[in-house]
């Protein structure tokens, strides 16, 4: 016999606060992600007068061979870069994880250097090395660096750390027992490599492939600087919107860019789920044994990569200091004066301010959001929706998000119109653009907390929000710092997200670098790009010092 259905429990204060926050997050995501994308889509189905024309614009697009060609260009450079990066990255990750080479820590740091520089830095350096007046121009055998070759080389440089991070994680999870079993069965080293190492890293390799593909496919900065006449989707969008004021076609190309990116993202999510289930058993950590030939070969390989990284960085810096490349190689600081109006030091300070805001507010918003999704007890459906939306930004190319923001926030009757062309829209755009990765690392950290902390706290009559500050936040502090620095560095280096959104008062360093290059001041562009590298280094250094200090004070319980 069943009595009357029970009413839900009277909500206590913690539940009420949690629920209000969930609705706020939904509203924010709606305003700053869903609606702008919707505006973009509707724009793609309108004519210049704003009348709905269905798929008319897409027909025009398909009929224009020049535009359509860019699609294949994008696919081509993304495909080739992906193959190269996955191979190079795997070998490097293998050297770091599965061999006994010396200087592993150094090599790891070196491999992450490209993360601190804007993607255009590599393109600029390549211009100095292989451009029309480049040092090694002859090495290209008459081919021009301006085009697919340059795009691929620069893309390989800046996506390398992304590939390496995923690959070395997946290799670090390899199970020592499998190696021992393989040894016991008298398998050769090579056979072990193909039957144990590669299958173990399978999902890591798949995931890397998708991630790198999306990065290159949707990148704007590199093809803009070094693409020459070789058009890709991202530069087409820019040209249609900024050059020809054809917003509808910009929206159409954005969607053409968005669809493959979404597809790759979905496949990546799928393969990650498979990997998670593979890792449930408890593996024993693999400790490599020395093997002279292998270790020496891979040490040479790592040294080679290191030299290449420094050559890129060094050439960009050298180019920025040279008086008049290549005729007068004496050094000067005059390129740091940035004589082109509006693109000077102001833009650098703007960038620093913007990055600090994005990192500060972004970290707070993202961490609290992840906590709500992971730990709130009620409103499961709403939290699932939030989680789904939080994953979306990863699949949305920065240039598409930027364009969507113009369409949405520039509408006259939008009450949020006031943020258009301000610092606020740059900060919000940056937080949304880099939301997913930070969100996922916050979720991972929060998942590690005992699932009963909230129950214990409630049973002891302590509201959840008090526990959040007393326990959750202190325990997750290392992750919080990581999110901060991730957001800061990305905000400093991003181009594609903000290229449409800055105003005369809010130019950014990375955008300035592109415009300086556009106006022929390559040395100025290099100088600006290097400034970004230095500030990223500096902030990372401060981050390390502060976090070590704070770690000692707040994480004492960890290392006892």
């Amino acid at each position, binding site marked *: *016999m*069943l*009595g*009357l*259905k*029970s*009413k*839900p*429990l*009277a*909500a*206590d*204060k*913690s*539940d009420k606060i949690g629920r209000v926050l969930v609705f706020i997050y939904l509203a924010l995501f709606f305003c700053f992600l869903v609606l702008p994308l919707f505006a973009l889509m509707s724009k793609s189905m309108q004519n210049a007068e704003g009348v709905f024309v269905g798929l008319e614009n897409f027909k025009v697009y398909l009929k224009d061979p020049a535009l359509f060609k860019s699609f294949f260009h994008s696919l081509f450079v993304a495909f080739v870069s992906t193959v190269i990066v996955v191979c190079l990255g795997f070998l490097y990750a293998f050297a770091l994880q599965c061999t006994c080479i010396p200087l592993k820590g150094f090599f790891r740091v070196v491999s992450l250097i490209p993360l601190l520089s804007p993607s255009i830095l590599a393109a600029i350096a390549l211009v100095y090395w292989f451009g029309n007046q480049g040092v090694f121009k002859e090495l290209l055998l008459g081919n021009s660096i301006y085009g697919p070759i340059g795009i691929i080389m620069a893309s390989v440089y800046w996506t390398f750390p992304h590939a390496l991070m995923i690959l070395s994680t997946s290799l670090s999870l390899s199970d020592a027992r499998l190696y021992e079993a393989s040894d016991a069965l008298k398998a050769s080293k090579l056979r072990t490599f193909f039957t144990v190492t590669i299958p173990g890293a399978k999902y890591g390799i798949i995931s890397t492939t998708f991630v790198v593909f999306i990065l290159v496919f949707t990148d704007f900065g590199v093809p803009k600087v070094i693409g020459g006449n070789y058009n890709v989707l991202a530069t087409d969008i820019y040209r249609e919107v900024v050059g020809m004021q054809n917003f509808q076609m910009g929206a159409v190309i954005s969607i053409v860019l968005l669809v493959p990116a979404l597809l790759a993202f979905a496949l990546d999510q799928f393969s990650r789920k498979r990997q998670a289930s593979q890792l449930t058993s408890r593996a024993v950590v693999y400790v490599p044994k020395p093997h002279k030939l292998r270790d020496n070969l891979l040490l040479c390989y790592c040294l080679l990569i290191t030299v290449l990284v420094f050559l890129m960085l060094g050439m960009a810096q050298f180019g920025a200091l040279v008086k008049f490349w290549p005729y007068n190689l004496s050094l000067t600081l005059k390129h740091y004066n940035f004589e082109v109006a509006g693109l000077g030091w102001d833009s650098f300070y703007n960038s620093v301010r913007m990055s600090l805001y994005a990192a500060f507010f972004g970290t707070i918003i993202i961490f609290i959001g992840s906590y709500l999704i992971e730990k709130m007890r009620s409103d499961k459906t709403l939290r699932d929706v939030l989680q789904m939306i939080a994953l979306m930004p990863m699949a949305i190319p920065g240039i598409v998000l930027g364009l969507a923001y113009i369409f949405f926030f520039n509408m006259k009757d939008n009450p949020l119109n006031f943020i258009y062309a301000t610092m606020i829209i740059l900060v919000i755009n940056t937080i949304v653009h880099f939301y997913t990765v930070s969100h996922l690392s916050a979720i991972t950290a929060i998942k590690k907390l*005992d*699932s*009963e*902390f909230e*129950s*214990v*706290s*409630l*049973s*002891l*009559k*302590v*509201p959840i929000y*008090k526990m959040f500050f*007393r*326990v959750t936040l*202190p*325990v997750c502090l290392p992750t919080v710092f990581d999110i901060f620095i991730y957001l800061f560095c990305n905000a400093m280096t991003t181009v594609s997200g903000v290229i449409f959104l800055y105003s005369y008062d809010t130019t950014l360093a990375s955008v300035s670098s592109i415009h300086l290059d556009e106006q022929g001041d390559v040395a100025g562009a290099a100088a600006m790009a290097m400034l970004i590298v230095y500030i990223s280094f500096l902030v990372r250094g401060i981050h390390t010092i502060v976090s070590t200090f704070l770690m000692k004070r*707040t*994480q*004492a*319980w*960890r290392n*006892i």
Partner: protein
Amino acid sequence: MVKADSYLSVKNLSKFFGKFLALDDVSIDISAGEFVCFLGPSGCGKTTLLRCIAGLEVQSFGTIIQNSEIISGLPTSQRDFGIVFQSYALFPNLSCFQNISYGLENLGWDKKDITKRVEELLLLVGLSDHSAKYPSQLSGGEQQRIALARAIAASPNLLLLDEPLSALDAKVRVHLRQELKSFHRRLGLTTIMVTHDQEEALSIADRIFVMDRGKIMQFGTPEDIYANSSNPFVANFIGMTNFIEGKVLNEKVIKIDDKQIDCIGHGFAKGTKVLVAARPECIQLSKKITKNIFNGKVADVEFLGSFLRIYLETSIMPNQRLIVDKPMVGDFDKSISVGDVVGFKMLPTHLNVYECDE
């Protein structure tokens, strides 16, 4: 009706997870000061029932009354209980002292009172020297004791224990369960413990509620439940039992195979197919085989320290082996070995009889 001496009453409680019925019309009464165990296999609903009492899950139907007050609509933070989880759930960044005082600070206690109370509790659980240590510096058993101290710090009137010993080593588990029992004796706190370990429940509880598939299968004292299991599930879950099929001849005689056995009144009509449940220690072996006793071939012998466990292949249990436990003391002939044919009989006073459902 709520019994006059009932401290906690659960009335007609049901809980759905989607379409899955986790609790099916459960009603229980617990007296003040009792130590009660919810016992059952995983997925039987015991933890769900505990979490409903704590307000950590919301029941779909039914009411819960604690101390004459209906609490089933109150949020967790307004109910009167302390809870200890299997995972300890100690806050890793707070010292033992801070963990125990965590709730007290929020209640607005005076600093001096807090220190006094925490020291008192540390003394109670025998960890006075560990006040300043972090949880990760303690062993599992010590951490669980801190968790217990934290749960009872604000003197709640009900203590809930959710598989508190399951994460511990076997020896620590036995030790801590004796300690739990002695805390209970000293504090007189009404306590509910959830466990899947029948030995733990038997050794510690005043009363046990055996659960299966969201229902209470039987409740009573440990002795009662063990000796007079009211259905085959309980008989099988608590301890070990041999089930032998038979047919009722009359009030006190059941026919098994071609032989008859005596048993105490069972209340089934003549001709009913029944299951006779015999505990391994209630079966007597003999080397002599006469016409009136059953016989079987020894298939395996396990030495388990204080007793021998003998597996017999016998015609009265065609699909399974009959299990017999023999203490390693007394006059028993130890020369029993695999392949021997032995006789056995069941002690009439120790048998339970259940209707055999097809």
